[in-house]
Structure formats: C-alpha cells, structure tokens
C-alpha cells in the first residue's frame, strides 16, 4: 500500500532575485497511513510552508507531492479544491472560523461544498461537534466561544468529512494549558480511530503525543526521532 503522503525534493521560494526567500530547500518526507507525526523546528524553518503545501493550500515551486498515491502537481485549481474538500482536514493556529456564523454552520461548511444533503449534513455535523464535546454549543457564534472551544469547532470542521489526513499548524499555540490538553485529547482520539495526523508544535509535551517527531532545519528534514 502506498503512503498517504510522499514528498520528494520539495522546494518553495517566496519572491525572486535578491529578496528571494528559500523556505523549503529539497525536503523529503513520507507519512504512512494511520501515522501520528509531530513537526518541530525553529521559527522560520519552513514548517508552515510545508504543511500548507501538504494541505493543498499552497503550491510548491518544484518537487513532487503524492497524496494517497496521486500526483497533486497534475491537478488544476478545481481538482485541488476537491482534494481539500475530500481528503484533507486542516486546523489553523488562529482557528479561522467564518465570523458571525454558528458553530454548526461552520462545521457543515465542508459538507455543503461536498454536496451532502441537508438532513445528513446536520446529522454528521452534530456528530462531529459531539465528538469534540461541543454538543451544547452548536448555535453559538465564534465570538461567543472561548479560544479552546473555537479550536474544537475548527477540529470538528476538519474531521467532519472523514478526510484521509488531518493537518494541524500549531493547534495549541493560542490556547491555555487546559484547552491545549482537551485539543490534544481529541487529536489522540482521532489517531486512535485510524486517522492520519500531522501537526506542528513548539512544545515537547505536545510532540510527545505523536509516534514520530520530524525536525525541520532550514527547509530540510534534519532528523527523525522515534
């Protein structure tokens, strides 16, 4: 069986000429199905750049990225949006919920774009909110929720489509210790139920949840700690 993620010689350059920033310089990475991986590294080392490319939110300057054995380089914008919708769940450090919209509507969002019917959509969104322990908060808007609760809504939104991989860029970066613990418990449960999880973190306690930690230095993978 092919790995869920297979990245070869990935490069990403921002800008051009003298001011060009080489965020990724020939990075290789393989993630097997069901793995739980933490990415660590100094600020500016290229972690977010890597994760954005893995989430199909951005496009590499060169190199190949196979997602579930499919070369994403061959995909056009329309197919990429389909990939993001079906195969990827992305959790941001800053939550990125649609403002002035209820938790339920936020979680339903990917399902709407997936063309899931209303009744089924509601059922699945409620189940996802239940899974993150927010069944009581379905009709609250983001500004009526704490940071930890917002992040749990965002995780519910990421897992509601049953994606092949869940990617999280410093999901606990903006949270206090208790909220962080809750969020990590949810990610642990996701992994336990067979989901592939890749997260970026600065904290060793968070990284300790993962099976494997990858260290990124200057846009390359420097070492793998098991």
């Amino acid at each position: 069986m092919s790995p869920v993620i297979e990245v070869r010689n990935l490069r990403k350059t921002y800008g051009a000429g003298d001011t060009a920033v080489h965020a990724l310089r020939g990075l290789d990475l393989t993630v097997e199905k069901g793995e739980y991986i933490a990415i660590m590294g100094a600020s500016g080392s290229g972690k977010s750049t890597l994760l954005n490319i893995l989430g199909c939110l951005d496009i590499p300057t060169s190199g190949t990225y196979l997602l579930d054995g499919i070369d994403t380089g061959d995909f056009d914008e329309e197919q990429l949006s389909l990939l993001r919708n079906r195969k990827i769940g992305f959790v941001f450090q800053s939550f990125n919920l649609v403002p002035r919209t209820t938790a339920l509507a936020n979680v339903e969002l990917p399902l709407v774009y997936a063309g899931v019917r209303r009744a089924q959509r509601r059922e699945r969104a409620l189940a996802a909110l239940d899974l993150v322990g927010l069944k009581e908060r379905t009709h609250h808007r983001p500004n009526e929720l704490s940071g930890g609760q917002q992040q749990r809504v965002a995780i519910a939104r990421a897992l509601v489509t049953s994606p092949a991989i869940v990617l999280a860029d410093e999901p606990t970066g903006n949270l206090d210790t208790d909220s962080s613990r809750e969020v990590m418990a949810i990610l642990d449960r996701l992994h336990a139920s067979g989901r592939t999880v890749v997260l970026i973190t600065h904290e060793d306690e968070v990284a300790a949840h993962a099976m494997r930690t990858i260290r990124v230095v200057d846009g390359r993978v420097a070492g793998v700690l098991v």
Partner: protein
Amino acid sequence: MRLVEIAAFAVRGLTANKMRSGLTTLGILIGVASVILLIAVGNGASSAVQQSIAGLGTNILTISPQRAQQGSTVKPLTTADAAALVGPDSPDVKYASPVVSAQATAGYGGTSYAISQFIGTDPHYFETTNSGVAQGNLFSDNDIQQARKVVVIGATVATQLFPGVDPVGKSMLVNNIPFTVVGVLAAKGSSGLQDADDMAVAPLTTTQNALTGYGSLTQIVVQARSADALPNAQAQVTTILNGRHKVSQTADYRILSQDQLLTARTATTETFTVLLASVAAISLLVGGIGITNIMLVTVTERIREIGIRKAVGAPRSSILGQFLIEATLLSLFGGALGVAAGMLGTQFTIAGIKPVLVPSSVLLAFAVSALIGLFFGSYPASRAAKLRPIEALRHE
C-alpha cells in the same frame, strides 16, 4: 453543490451583518432616489412653464415698447395705437387690448398683501388670455368709461386677503385707494417660477389714474381671429404701427407671438433641465462612488472568509456565485427602495415645483446603480477567489 445552497450562503452573508448590508442598501437607495427626483423636478419645472404658456392660447401677439436704439427716438405705445390696430386695415385682428401693469400693495381688514401684477386693461383682455371668472363678474366697457374703481382678483390674492370670506362686493385698498372687488378669476396655477394667480385686473383708466400714470403702455395684447391668421395679423399690426410711429429702419416696439414666447421659454427651461441633469449625473457619480466604496470594503473585509471557504474545499465557481448573488440582492433591493423613495418624493411639491417623473430616469438610475453594485460587489470577490487559499487567508 446546488445553486440553492450558494444562494443560502449569500442570504446568510447579508443577514449576518445587517449593519453593513443596511449601509450598502442605503447608499444605493440615496443614489437612485436623488437621480430620479432631481430629473423629475427639472422636468416638472419645464412642463409647468410650457403648460402655462400654452394655456394662454396660440393666437396672441404681444407688443411691447423697445428700448431706445442709438440715433432713433422712441414713441410710447398709446391707447390710440391700440385702438388703431382694430379696423378695416387689419381684418385678421380681433381685439387689441392696451395693458398697463405695476406692483401694488393691497389691504383688507387687518391684512395687507403685495400683488406682483396689478393690471389695467379692457374687458377683451380676459377673453384673449383665456381668463374665466370663478365668482362674481368681470368689469365692462362702461366701467372703463366711468373710471370706476372696480377690480377682478386672481385666486392667490383672494386666498391671501380674504381667507374664509367671499371677496365679491368687498372693498379692498390698493395703494390706499379703495377698490370694489367685483369678481375672482379661476385659478391657473403656478408656472413653476411665477404664480399666474398672483394678480388683479382693473379698468385701464382707473389703473392709470390710481397707479401707473399716463405714460407708455406696458403692452398691447392682440388677439388674432384664429391661430392660422396669426402671421397675417402680425404683418397688419406691423404695417399700422410702422405708419403711426414713422419707423424707417429699426422699430421702436417689439412683437412677440405666443410661439416665439414658448420657444424662448422652452429654451430657458431646457437649460434648467440640462443643469439639473448634470446635478443628477454628479449625484449618480457620487452615489456610484459610495456604492463602489462600501462594496470594496465589504469584499476586502471578507477575503479571509473567502480563504476559509477555499481551505475547506469551496470551488471558485461557488464563491463567485455567492458574492454575485449577494451583490445582486443588495443592488436590486437598494435600487427598488430607491425607486420607491424617488417616486414617493415626486408626489410632493419641491420649491414650488410639482415634479413630473421621467420614466427613463427610473430605468437609468436603477440600471446604473445596480450595475455599479454588481460590478464592485463581484469583481473584487472574483479576484479573491482566484487567489490560493493561503494567500486569501493571509490577506490583511
């Protein structure tokens, strides 16, 4: 995904921020309404003037004294001139009424009122100018011969001086001279810039005695036998007056036909309309900039939201569709309210002018505003939809 879902996003987007949607609607409303209203006022003014002139009849010539030219002397227009215009030499002239006019202050009881036109003339004047009597009677030739102090007043004077009182038979002071009101003229209405009912008519002799003195007439108003006979009548009048005034080169009087008057006035009101149209165009522009502004702000503020939607897998077409529907709904709603407000506004008299709606202006204002709203509501959104999700999410 289905269109209904996209439309639902659009509606939710609008209702989620009522303040923003309300302001946008208001911007479009004001733009549309002001254009419709301004054009209606201009149109109302010009059509009122035209109506009032047309109401006077089309078979009238007005003769007035010409200002002195270099090297020529000016003979005054006299009652004798007027009398000479009716006779066997001018078969197409029906009547020629001598007219003097002045401003006068009238008083009755405790009230006083400044009448803008106090006219002295003969009884034919009423027929020539299509003036009918609403109450009482007109004065007669006999009143002129006896120089009786009788007066027929216009509707405005009647309401100003005699509120709730029947003026007929009452004695009214004109420049402190008592006149007996014998009749009230039927209302003609305002001609936009000037109130045709703010006047009073008395016998020529009495008016000259009391108010104007015996100098030149202000006008001679000639009625031709028919509208078709007007050019002949004009020629006959010219011949007679040239003879009497011994005119060799430039005439010391001026003849204006109702047609010419109409043309002159129409030109004036057209200028007025053009002026108002430019004001309207500017207000359309300003309204348009307002719409543009709020739409751009709205979309820019929401580029992050576009990024979020793209990140969870929204195809470009659905984002485009959502913002297009939002912009359409706002533009249509604001435009419709603006049309309603504009049409409501035309029901009121504005600065003495009764606005007359120009149907094409409704279409113009609506279309321009809707297109501006649509364009600036959806064009920036379509650009944002083309960004990579991460670029949209990072947008400041």
